């Protein structure tokens, strides 16, 4: 990736979204009948997902939902599939119930394999703050899309032309990569005269 030009990035502010944090460990205690300390089994994952969906629906506004894994000790594949993969799928669909974006925080090494496995299984992606790594893009996306995502992260808000200042690729390829990232909902697209894309982490910080 190239160096960031001094005037890179967009002058206008980011769009308004409501950041909303879900402490998954606490939420599972509210969402399922028993007090479970680990995120295991499909019914637990389903209960958790329904709880998150309900709260997103109650907000009634575009929202950036933070899935906080920091208190989660054990996360199994079944629960990760129900909580993470199916939640992302639900808000990726055209008929999504709300305009929600998801971001994960507190992801440790003990969670990462499970999250990456379910993302790969469904061809999904997720922005996550991973212990010792910082914000990164999880999921099996092509190298160019990963590079473009990193560029948007640096710029906070960017068009394809802005990204071209950092990534050496034809502008139409960059535009396609940005649209793919937007369709994965790992960046937020704004349809201005020229489409611009916002990084989820910048929206998180702005909130």
């Amino acid at each position, binding site marked *: 990736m190239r160096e960031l030009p001094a005037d890179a990035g967009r002058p206008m502010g980011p769009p308004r979204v409501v950041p909303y944090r879900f402490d998954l460990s606490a939420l599972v205690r509210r969402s399922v009948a028993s007090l479970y300390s680990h995120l295991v089994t499909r019914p637990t994952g389903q209960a958790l997902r329904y709880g998150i969906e309900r709260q997103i629906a109650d907000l009634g506004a575009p929202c950036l939902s933070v899935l906080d894994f920091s208190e989660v000790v*054990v996360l199994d594949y079944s629960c990760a599939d129900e909580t993470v993969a199916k939640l992302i799928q639900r808000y990726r669909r055209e008929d999504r119930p709300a305009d929600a974006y998801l971001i994960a925080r507190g992801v440790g090494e003990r969670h990462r394999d499970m999250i990456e496995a379910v993302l790969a299984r469904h061809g999904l992606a997720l922005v996550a703050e991973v212990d010792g790594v910082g914000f990164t893009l999880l999921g099996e996306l092509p190298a160019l899309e990963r590079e473009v995502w990193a560029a948007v992260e640096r710029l906070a808000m960017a068009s394809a032309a802005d990204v071209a200042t950092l990534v050496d690729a034809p502008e139409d390829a960059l535009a396609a990569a940005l649209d793919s990232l937007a369709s994965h909902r790992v960046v937020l697209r704004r349809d201005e005269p020229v489409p611009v894309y916002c990084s989820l982490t910048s929206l998180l910080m702005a909130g």
Partner: protein
Amino acid sequence: MNVIHLPGSLEERTFDQLVQALAGRGEGRALFDARRVHWVDPYGMLALLAVGEVAGRGGERPLLQLPESAEVTSYLARMGFFEHAAELFELHGPRRRAGEGGHSDVLLEITPVRSHADVHAVVDRVNERAQAILTRQLDYPSREAFQFSVILSEVCQNIVEHSGAHGWVATQTYNWARRLGRKVVVIAVMDLGVGFRGSLSGEHAARYGDRWSDAVALEAAFIHGLTRFRDPGRGQGLQQIRKLVGRWGGKVSIRSGTARIAQVPDWDDAPPMEERLAPFPGAQICIVLPARAEGAA
């Protein structure tokens, strides 16, 4: 009376002898003679419960003549074997209480699995103990040791989600000094439900036609991640277990119906697939995780 003599060593390698003897028994009440049993692991214990339940179906409870070895009966007591066996067998011979025979080094006693709540209970109970054993005794890095609970959770969920019956799980650490020169953790999970073929038949049998069998069903689930559900998110558990256990140089085998499939490490000589075994209901899973070899990454 049908007397079935148990092998001296009750473990995965001798399970087929037991099933063969059960299949070949005549009419009348069965007596399982365990007097000469000098070694038993979690798989062997669950196997004994399973054959006891099958032998008692539709007839009188079988008899179980307990091992003469005090060491074995003491271990059976620590694993909670007798309380489960008493429901399935008429027990004879010396029994010990769990407190006798010193401090318990059991990782997970025989635990029934009937519901998702039981799976939570297993993970709650075993996670901290497993962390300590895997990191301190088997030299697993902490992030990998956490996955032990994930493995347990997924194999136990297999019973609840697919077998249509109850099952059991048990796990223990051993020093396989002669066999491997290292410590191992053995996980055994068994049920007496519909088996892999029964679970998958409705959704997948037609596609395989005449080739459909226990072996094909096992391969479909274990290698290709097929399940009876159309949800593509299903079926990850066994596949991920296979990958994890492979990464750790361990062994995983699943016997169901008349076949057994295994992922075999270089320290074991089991065949990757066995067919035409004596029929037995449900699924019997054995996972062996060896201590990290010196110099392992």
